């Protein structure tokens, strides 16, 4: 059985999987330089993904039959879509790179944990809150 991400799917709902960018020849110097300059560092050895749905693929052989299970989530938080890698294992548990030692019984628990662990990343902008309040008043 293998668990991996589906590559190069086509269609509107598919997840675009680009080839990984070429890693800098010296990852240490590259990362150090950016961090010292106050800049972020994204993983270079990982495939880049467009925002949008992702698809985890499980391939299992059972009694001479090959079973393939595709799992695709479309996740929005406060109406904003979130991409990235979310994997499902044989037990149906869900995991993501941001919390590498965790696995969750459902994607709901994963997203809740993300919000708990990275609260600053999910802070609502004041304008969003104002707009929502305005919409409620107009109803």
């Amino acid at each position, binding site marked *: *059985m*293998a*668990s*991996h*991400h*589906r*590559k190069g799917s086509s269609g509107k709902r598919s997840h675009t*999987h680009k*080839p*990984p960018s070429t890693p800098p020849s*010296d*990852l*240490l*110097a590259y*990362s*150090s*330089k950016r*961090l*010292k300059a*106050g*800049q*972020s*560092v*994204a*993983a*270079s*050895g*990982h*495939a880049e*993904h467009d*925002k949008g749905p992702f698809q*985890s693929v499980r391939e299992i052989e059972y009694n001479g039959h090959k079973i393939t299970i595709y799992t695709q989530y479309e*996740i929005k938080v406060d109406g*904003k*879509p*979130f*991409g*990235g*890698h*979310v*994997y499902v*294992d*044989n*037990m149906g*548990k869900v*995991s*993501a*790179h*941001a*919390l*590498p*030692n*965790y*696995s969750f019984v459902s994607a709901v628990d*994963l997203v809740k944990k*993300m919000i708990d*662990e*990275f609260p*600053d*990343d999910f802070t609502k902008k004041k304008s969003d809150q104002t707009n929502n309040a305005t919409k409620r008043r107009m109803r």
Partner: protein
Amino acid sequence: MAVTRRNILGDSNVRDKYIEGVKLLKQDFLKQDWANTYDIFIIWHYHAMMTATPPGWDRNAAHKGPSFLPWHRWMLILLEHHLQRVLDDPDFGLPYWDWAADGELPANQQQTADIWTEDYMGGSGFPVTTGPFRDGQWQVNIESRRAPGSFDPILVPTNRPLRRALSRDASNLPTKEEVRRSVLRGEPNVVYDATPWDPNSTSFRNELEGWWPDAPGLHNRVHVWVGGDMGPATSPNDPVFFLNHCNVDRIWEDWQQRHGNPPYLPDDSAGTALRGHRLNDRLFGITTSELFDPIYRGRVRPADLLDVSARYIYDVF
């Protein structure tokens, strides 16, 4: 001559040297344009974790696959080398934290065990306010954040104290019985790793890493139980990271010796999808510079890390 790695709770000298050493590494710069030597381990760990092998798969260059144990063994050997250098003590051996011994305590006593007291690693908190790594004594310079619009993490510079959330996300540490089961599983036909070579494998590596049979187990459970900075891909931010991995390495060494050095798997006949994990594949390095890695120069294979008896031994299994 091989150094001896000891239980941090049984030797106050090695404890004090470890604490002094990691703090010295935070002030140590091997090259002007590099991060400090301690933080290099954080950067390396992040990039290894985010290097899917092959691209698109859950397995990465240092986790969720066969290379998990040798890759972290390499990391510990280099940390030990740099600690020996800054401490000017070639006999210094990394300490380990035998977390399964604390796992024998009642759940409500585990977070007040000796390891979390003032003289050892300090306690829990956002920020940690006790012990040698409390606010003002230890600085987190690099943290993991979400990439915009994604659940995938990026590294960002920061300047903040250490965070821990002991027992918040897991009620218990692993127990001695759980460790014993993993070491003896399948005896006498023990298996280092097995297809599909990922978190679904029924194997010693996968059980010790903590994906099977009940996640989070063993190594993963310790990360989850400690929480805070031990959670994300930048988990070496907490010096407890290395105490955990030294204990994981000790369990692997116990397994190897107890069973007469079973073969590392996969061997070189495995397909290219397992590149980076096979016996003679090169493991994921962060630099080939001798300054950081004077031992292997960034070029090391699992095969080079199976017999480490010339470098170190453990005081007890």
